[in-house]
């Protein structure tokens, strides 16, 4: 009986530790998933999936102070898988309906052009762009998060930025 109580107590402590670590990361994870996926419901699902996967693997995490990066890697992988899955089947993508916008700096037409250009990027390029320009992570941190060399990350960001710029540039050229 004592052993069972000790085991249950250890499990409770483990769950509480996990809860605390997840609570600190949840907001940022959900927002990043929203930016990458462009859909609040998908972002919610992806973040929840990341929490479940993290819990199932929590015992293999050796350093709890690295939980943030570890959890981020799980989330980004799930988002990337979801983008790949979405690319394989036609499904209506719901935009984030009440996302805050600032008309002083971003015209509606520009947003639509950027939306289209972003949707045309590969999942890897979308993830790289969001991590660099939304999450503001340095290249080395992105490389660690997505598990590729820094040179590959730089190349992905460069290609993604050029395509986004082309989307706006082509329109500006055409409207003149």
């Amino acid at each position: 009986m004592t052993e069972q109580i000790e085991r249950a107590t250890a499990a409770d402590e483990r769950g509480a530790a996990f809860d605390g670590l997840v609570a600190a990361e949840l907001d940022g994870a959900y927002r990043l998933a929203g930016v990458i996926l462009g859909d609040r419901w998908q972002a919610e699902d992806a973040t929840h999936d990341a929490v479940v996967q993290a819990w199932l693997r929590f015992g293999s995490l050796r350093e709890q102070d690295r939980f943030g990066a570890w959890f981020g890697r799980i989330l980004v992988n799930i988002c990337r898988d979801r983008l790949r899955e979405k690319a394989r089947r036609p499904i209506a993508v719901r935009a984030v309906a009440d996302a805050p916008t600032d008309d002083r700096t971003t015209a509606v037409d520009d947003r639509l052009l950027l939306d289209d250009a972003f949707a045309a990027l590969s999942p890897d390029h979308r993830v790289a762009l969001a991590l660099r320009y939304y999450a503001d992570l340095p290249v080395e941190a992105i490389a660690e998060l997505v598990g590729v060399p820094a040179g590959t990350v730089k190349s992905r960001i460069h290609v993604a930025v050029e395509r986004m710029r082309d989307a706006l540039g082509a329109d500006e050229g055409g409207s003149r």
Partner: protein
Amino acid sequence: MTDAAFDRRLRDWLDGRDPGPVPASLRESAASVPLQTPVPAVSRVWQAIVGPGAAGRPGSPARLVLALVLLGLLVAAVATLVTVGSTPAPLTGWRDYVVGQPAPDLDFGSVAGTLPRGDSTISVDDLPGALVVLYFPGEATAERTAADARALIQASGHAPNATAFVVIAAESAPIAPDTVSLIHDAGMLTAATPAGWDADPPIGGPALVITGRGGVVEYVFASELPDADQLVGDLDRASLP
């Protein structure tokens, strides 16, 4: 446009995609994960052997060797089981479907010509590579069955490719005819439970079983079924390799 101007426009646009603070529902569901998601026993044992101690220290080499020996024994045991073979116990109700286990090859019979012409039975094995949603109305009221059917029909419009919806009625609790016609119009199949299936134990309230593309049960819901949006989300997850 200058680099700086484009950089700013890009950041503004990405900020515009930010969905805002995490919703309370997600915070609550995340907090319940450790309570509601059991860690598989194999994983627990593995983590107990090679995982970190209370202070987060890595496991010792001796523990790793022990773990590898145990893993070898486990592989040998599985290989023995596969060689010898085993016969799954007969099912007596939807409760026998267990998450993570293969859906047994069980034939559901035809109900008054509701299966495609020429087919007298259907089983999950008849739908290789498909996601299969099995809906058991059980002894639910006609209103409840109709409401569930509407959610299924709505979800079927957005489900991943090659998703089969099979509605399985008990002989003792037939589905209302107008609900059956709704289901058929949506391209779903209706089948009967095998004889004697709902006798002991009784089927009870409605249930939903989702199998992945490999025929392994991914989700089981009882009484509280997912709505159409949740169902599509579950199907998306079950569809992932």
